[in-house]
């Protein structure tokens, strides 16, 4: 789920008028909504709805609360301590132990990037009718060129705004010709009906849903945005509004995808194996227009995610090793950073061209995301509670309760994920 740092207009916050500040927050929220979904959600949400109807809505809600909590914390740490997540990890874990999450995140990011590039190729395939494998290299080159040529503001705002048409999915459920059992959905959100069999697959699906929503790359990109835009404590309100309001509204997309899958695909026993089947939700609501909007939105979302993942891979490496970095800097001033994201894209292309099923890659990357998350969150929690660093901005009781609870949950889920992955044959039963 790409969140990005949607604070495109907050530079020079103290000089802004009240209206200007409101506009900055509104842009942050709007772009957070548009950038909420990535390939992981486009694949896992409708699939979970089609398989378990509404009984995994709780996992989406759980993931959204966790994502809000950690996004707010990552932003707050950055703007108070002036350091990004990976700088914090290096400081608290030290170089050698820090290498463990760094390598885990690199592997995870490359897998995720492969899924995003494949997702973009799938979307274009639906438009032009060419097999997605032929589109992998052009898409990868496009993603690379966009980053080489773009500034930070361009990279964070354009794809997110392009992703906004994906709101057609929840809109189709609310205003379209689809009969949604809202009462049943609300009931299962609070009191889910756990299936009597295949508990392992159910648990693994829940873990992958949480992983899809709480993809680690988002925190790195999010906090790196703070460095790019030189946040200070004056930006705290924007951080909180974006994290809470933006994520809440953005979660409508995730809920919409799952409820749509549950409403349209579950009764037909269709398990969506392709992004086009997810498009049926929008098409059922608004016909051809819905499908066009869906494709546009899905394309914007996965383009944004491709950029965020590749950027966050290079940011993580650069911040950990102390190399110069920055999306707005000239390539010759940040050579290692540029080479890092170019290599990440190349690695993703190699994986895809080897013939591995992109949907399988997506599912596995979502599960590995949960395995990698505790490594990121522990140092964040330590710093967020450090009086000397955070002063009056240290975690309060609510942030600590949610933070430690999620850290515990994710640790347990991370330990359970690998055996579940093996037992269920990577979710294939």
């Amino acid at each position: 789920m790409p969140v990005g740092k949607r604070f495109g207009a907050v530079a020079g916050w103290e000089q802004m008028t009240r209206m200007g500040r409101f506009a900055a927050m509104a842009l942050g929220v709007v772009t957070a909504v548009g950038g909420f979904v990535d390939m992981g959600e486009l694949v896992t949400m409708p699939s979970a709805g089609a398989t378990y109807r509404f009984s995994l809505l709780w996992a989406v809600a759980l993931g959204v609360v966790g994502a809000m909590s950690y996004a707010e914390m990552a932003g707050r740490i950055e703007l108070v301590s002036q350091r990004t997540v990976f700088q914090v990890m290096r400081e608290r874990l030290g170089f050698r132990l820090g290498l463990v999450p760094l390598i885990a995140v690199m592997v995870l990011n490359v897998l995720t990037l492969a899924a995003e590039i494949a997702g973009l190729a799938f979307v274009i395939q639906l438009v032009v009718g060419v097999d997605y494998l032929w589109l992998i290299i052009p898409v990868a080159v496009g993603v690379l060129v966009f980053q080489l040529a773009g500034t930070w503001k361009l990279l964070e705002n354009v794809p997110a705004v392009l992703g906004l048409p994906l709101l057609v999915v929840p809109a189709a459920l609310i205003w379209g010709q689809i009969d949604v059992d809202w009462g049943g959905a609300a009931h299962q959100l609070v009191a889910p009906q756990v299936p009597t069999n295949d508990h392992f697959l159910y648990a693994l699906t829940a873990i992958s849903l949480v992983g899809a929503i709480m993809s680690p790359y988002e925190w790195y990109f999010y906090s790196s945005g703070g460095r790019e835009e030189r946040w200070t404590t004056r930006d705290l309100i924007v951080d909180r509004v974006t994290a809470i309001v933006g994520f809440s509204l953005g979660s409508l997309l995730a809920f919409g995808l799952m409820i749509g899958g549950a409403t349209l695909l579950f009764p037909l026993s269709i398990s969506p194996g392709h992004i086009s089947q997810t498009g049926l939700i929008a098409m059922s609501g608004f016909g051809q227009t819905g499908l066009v909007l869906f494709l546009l939105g899905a394309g914007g979302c996965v383009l944004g995610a491709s950029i965020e993942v590749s950027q966050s891979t290079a940011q993580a490496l650069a911040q950990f090793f102390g190399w110069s970095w920055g999306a707005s800097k000239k390539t010759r001033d940040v050579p290692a950073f540029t080479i890092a994201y170019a290599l990440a894209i190349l690695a993703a292309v190699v994986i895809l061209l080897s013939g591995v099923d992109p949907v399988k890659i997506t599912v596995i990357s979502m599960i590995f995301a949960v395995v990698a998350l505790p490594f990121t969150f522990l140092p964040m929690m330590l710093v967020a509670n450090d009086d000397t660093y955070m002063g009056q901005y240290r975690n309060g009781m609510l942030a600590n309760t949610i933070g430690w609870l999620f850290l515990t949950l994710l640790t347990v889920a991370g330990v359970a994920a690998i055996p579940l992955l093996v037992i269920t044959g990577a979710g294939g039963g």
Partner: protein
Amino acid sequence: VDLARDLIDHRIADLDDEDAGMVDDIWITWTHDAATLGPIITGTAALLHQLGRAGVALSAIAAHIGWSHANVWREIPWTDVRRIERPQVKLLLPRAQLPELPHRTSHATTEHTNAMLYSELINLPVFTRDHRRLGIIDIRTAALISEPPQVLGLLVAAHSRRRSFGLKHFDTTTIRLGGITRGGCFLAWSDIARITDQAIHTNAASGELTPLAAAPNPEPPPMPEGPTPP
């Protein structure tokens, strides 16, 4: 000021507040019963050096493919340090002058006598007069305002490695995290009898060491100056 907490692995910023690397290591130099901090070390080579044989192999590969930076680190003298803040070291140098800093190849560390890298010193065992083996949690210095800052002593504990699970040792010094405060002590540098490549020996018995709570504890570096909150 505790080096792992307040200096090592922190960002280095140039005169224009742009990234200029990380504090990857630091020299500790000593004469008789006093020690001071030597130049700050930055560069990927310093990190590879900490990986032992794996680092040597990676350095060789890097050299083979033409990545020369992987085998050379830069050393920043304290005269070029403008200010130490909690999250970063600020330099007096603009970006253009950074390449002019003294360089050293990673396999030339043995040239120094009476000097050791922080990353090597922190891993040495400490043997007390009564033959008790202690581990080093961190190295404590005077406030980082003098040139060069003086090393006050070592923070030591009986099981620093076993209890830390690889976390920076200071993270386990709080009781809240199940740490080692109760066994933690301060070993003044003046009480160190000798340092070899294998161990540090002190004339003090384990019972004579100062408890951490009673150890000298200068103010940590300040947070960066910035606008006040609204």
